[in-house]
């Protein structure tokens, strides 16, 4: 939670926006297309932040957000423009958070589509924009960075007109950096975005579209009142969670948190209700009055469901309690990831964690390492499979070690995605090649403009979680953008490849792959491990196997020579110290099938430098 001391208080405590008309809007934009800069300009233009306290990317409070140029937690801010109250709702900017995005959009009547005029519209932006249009949001399309020499507003406008059907004459041109065109943009928001509907007389229905944990106040939720009035001190009921609370504090962010007596229909603000865990105030929750509840919650609530899984293990086994502690703390602020204890022969004790997607996984891992100072090993990401057994029963599994024996299997279903790639036409071939090698099936191909096209694939999630995005970026020099959404499951010929060191399977390397890819995965892992495992006193076979059948084999040849030629004077001390260090080092080794494997070998082997 951000705590800012901003002296500016435009409202007497308890005041609502009164008769002043309201406009609720969000900004839909791709990474680096200038959303944070535009937000900064809006805060300045509307005098919402004292110029002395202004800093860049004001609304991105996490270091990670600033560094990666993405928004992880949604923010909202109330500003004034030409006698209107504007609520700017900042949405999370990544494909993993589509549900969170959808809730933020549900709190708005309009959206500013912000597109970098030198790059054109990107896949995720397009997907979010479609989502906004489906929700009947008014789109205000804006081309940003028109001050750049590389800007090509004409082409971009044509593209937007073609893809989204927005008249190119309606598309604004601004430079968020210099501020040029930003007042006109705010005017357009006032003119084009419809005011919120909703009656103050009907029972309260308010939408929670984000919740964050504050160690002093507990959970602080961002909230949009749809119907009725949310009063400070009133008894409220969370319709999905089925819990009752007291509205301890209701307020607005301008952007400093300012308590108010009540929030009326159409208003956006925050709610503190004495909740200790964000999982009990999820995005999409409908808040109503405990005394006079609404008959129906707002539509569109979904329980967050992890899509991507991996094992997280402390590099130093002694740090297990610290890892558990960190996961529990993080969970307070992010209800969408899950974790449960797991033990691995190779990696020791750790946790099996579930995430909304790959970025989410990376963010959680990075926060664990940074904010809690932990060193972690992550296993290769996996997805949720359903195994249908010959006896007619079903087993759900995401840990490859839990995949049932082939003899008991009838078939396995794997989760699928509908993936959209937007790419300059020069890279069509390489993108198609990548998607095909990952078992993608093309659904559609459309030229957005003569230079850019949209490719839509149905592709297994498992193929996307392993290094797909990095490959896409590197093969297209960073020009491709990707969006995806779940698209059911498909039955696939999947097998588990086990990796054995000296005939002992190493659970951390077991992976579920399509049968056609088993050999190449097996070869890659065995080759990699051969180069990583130190030579022993005996030959060490490294095998990849499917069921009982070995599909790849390498041998770490026995050491032939390991001796210092000279042992005089200082050599004696050096030799002894070396041995003492080795004995220390052995504590960091895992013994697998009598083979001493350094922890680093596991870490390197699990690194996703895919060479497919």
């Amino acid at each position: 939670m951000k705590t800012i001391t901003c002296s500016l208080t435009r409202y007497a405590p308890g005041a609502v926006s009164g008769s002043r008309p309201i406009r609720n809007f969000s900004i839909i934009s791709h990474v680096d297309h200038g959303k944070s800069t535009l937000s900064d300009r809006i805060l300045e233009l509307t005098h919402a932040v004292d110029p002395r306290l202004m800093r860049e990317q004001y609304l991105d409070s996490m270091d990670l957000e600033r560094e990666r140029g993405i928004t992880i937690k949604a923010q909202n801010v109330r500003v004034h423009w030409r006698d209107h109250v504007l609520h700017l709702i900042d949405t999370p900017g990544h494909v993993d958070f589509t549900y969170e995005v959808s809730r933020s959009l549900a709190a708005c009547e309009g959206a500013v589509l912000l597109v970098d005029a030198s790059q054109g519209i990107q896949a995720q932006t397009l997907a979010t924009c479609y989502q906004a249009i489906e929700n009947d949001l008014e789109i205000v399309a804006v081309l940003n960075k028109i001050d750049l020499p590389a800007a090509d507003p004409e082409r971009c406008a044509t593209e937007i007109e073609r893809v989204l059907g927005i008249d190119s004459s309606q598309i604004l041109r601004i430079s968020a950096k210099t501020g040029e065109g930003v007042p006109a943009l705010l005017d357009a928001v006032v003119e084009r975005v419809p005011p919120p509907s909703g009656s103050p007389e009907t029972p309260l229905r308010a939408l929670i579209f984000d919740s964050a944990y504050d160690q002093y106040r507990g959970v602080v939720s961002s909230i949009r009142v749809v119907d009725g009035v949310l009063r400070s001190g009133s008894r409220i009921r969370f319709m999905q969670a089925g819990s009752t609370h007291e509205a301890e504090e209701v307020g607005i962010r301008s952007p400093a948190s300012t308590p108010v007596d009540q929030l009326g229909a159409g208003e956006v603000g925050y709610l503190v209700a004495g909740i200790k865990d964000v999982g009990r105030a999820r995005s999409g929750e409908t808040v109503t009055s405990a005394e006079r509840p609404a008959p129906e919650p707002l539509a569109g609530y979904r329980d967050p469901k992890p899509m991507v899984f991996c094992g997280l293990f402390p590099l130093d086994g002694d740090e297990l309690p610290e890892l558990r502690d960190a996961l529990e703390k993080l969970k307070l602020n992010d209800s969408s990831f899950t974790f449960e204890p797991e033990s691995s022969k190779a990696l020791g004790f750790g946790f099996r964690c579930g995430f909304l997607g790959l970025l989410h996984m990376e963010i959680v891992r990075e926060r664990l390492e940074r904010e809690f100072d932990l060193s972690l090993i992550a296993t290769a990401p996996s997805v949720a499979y359903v195994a249908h057994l010959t006896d007619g029963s079903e087993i759900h599994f995401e840990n490859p070690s839990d995949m049932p024996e082939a003899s008991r299997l009838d078939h396995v279903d794997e989760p699928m995605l509908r993936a959209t790639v937007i790419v300059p036409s020069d890279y069509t071939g390489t993108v198609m090649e990548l998607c095909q090698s990952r078992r993608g099936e093309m659904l559609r191909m459309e030229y957005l403009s003569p230079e850019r096209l949209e490719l839509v694939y149905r592709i297994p999630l498992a193929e996307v979680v392993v290094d797909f995005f990095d490959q896409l970026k590197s093969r297209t020099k960073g020009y491709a953008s990707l969006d995806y959404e779940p698209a059911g499951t498909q039955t696939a010929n999947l097998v588990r490849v086990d990796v054995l060191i000296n005939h002992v399977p190493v659970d951390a390397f077991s992976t579920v792959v399509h049968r056609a890819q088993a050999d190449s995965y097996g070869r890659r892992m065995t080759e990699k491990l051969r180069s990583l495992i130190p030579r022993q006193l005996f030959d060490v076979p490294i095998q990849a196997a499917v069921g009982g059948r070995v599909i790849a084999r390498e041998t770490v040849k026995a050491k032939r020579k390991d001796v210092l030629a000279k042992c005089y004077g200082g050599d004696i001390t050096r030799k002894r110290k070396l041995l003492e260090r080795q004995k220390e080092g052995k504590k960091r080794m895992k013994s697998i099938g009598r083979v001493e494997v350094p922890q680093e070998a596991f870490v390197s082997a699990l690194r996703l430098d895919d060479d497919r």
Partner: protein
Amino acid sequence: MPAGPARSPADNRLLTLPDEPAREAGLGGFLDAKPDVFGVYVHVPFCRDHCDYCAFSVAVGQEHLAERYSRAIERELAVWKDRGVPLPADTVYLGGGTPSRLPPRLLAEILGSIPRRPGAEVTMEVNPEDLTDDALAAWVAAGVNRISLGVQATCAHVLAGIGRRQDASAGMQAAGLVSAAGLDSWGVDLIIGSPSETDADLLQAIESLSALEMPPSQVSCYLLTVESRTRLARDWRRHPDEEVLSRRYELADEALAAHGYQWVEISNWARPGGGCRHNLATWSGAEYLGLGPSACSHWAGRRWENERSLRRWLACVEAGGSAVAESEVLEPYQVILERLVLALRTPSGVPRSALAGAIDTYPELAELLDPSGEMLVLNRRGRLLCDAVAGYLDPAALG
């Protein structure tokens, strides 16, 4: 580098000597075998050239400091005498560097200052190109009674390959002169396993040495080792191949055995009674005092090492008489570990108990060791894996 007498804190600790010597009593029969002899090692850093493979502390083109160096050795010795090192010495070893670069007069003065028991061994490392009849006579007159001749190789292409600037014929010529001098004991060093060497080159060198009228009583064959920060390290084309090194080692072991040499340590073979007593004592855990830059000492339960650079060592000794750079007191388990590691490198071997636990888990170890009574001794293949085996030694199992 500051030239001042930058003495480390370790030195001050050392100045509080004499301490109680480390207690080694009760460590078992194996450890009681420590020889009751005391050696003196003198490091003579002067060299004409810096060989490409060499990582020793050497001083090229610094011969003008030889006089000061000799005075400082005497001073350093005097300081340690005052602190009670158990002189007279049973063995003296002049190593380098190149001790044969030292003018015989200075050599005589240094040796004259080191009290020795009657019959003490005095070994001197000699560069073949420094060896003449006159020089040899002068060294012997100064007290030297054993020569260790740094032949290294007898073929031009092998010498070039390892980066030693030495005339190809110099080695055997010098060996001939030593052979004729009638010393009871003398040794030759060879560097083997370089990519420029063939099996035939190595066999030829061993044949030639054995064919001398009075062959060396000891032959040392050192597998070419790439030390970091050497010219050799930067030239990977000259780096040795593990398989070649191993084969050359086995070849040398066979050829030397055929000529009556038995291994006395990983890299040393000697005829009966012909080994270097100074080094044999070192490997069995004996104590010694090191003088000169980079010299190491082992006495009174401590090991310490002198300043490496000639100038720094000189400055320290001239200022205070001692130039210790690093020093440590050995814990009892460290004493045992050292003794085991050293013994493993020799035909004495280690007590079976020190490896019994490891052999249970890794039966492969047994294939590298031959039983000899209650001891286990590395066989030929095992010697090449000596350090790997040492990793399994369990000092705690002795007791």
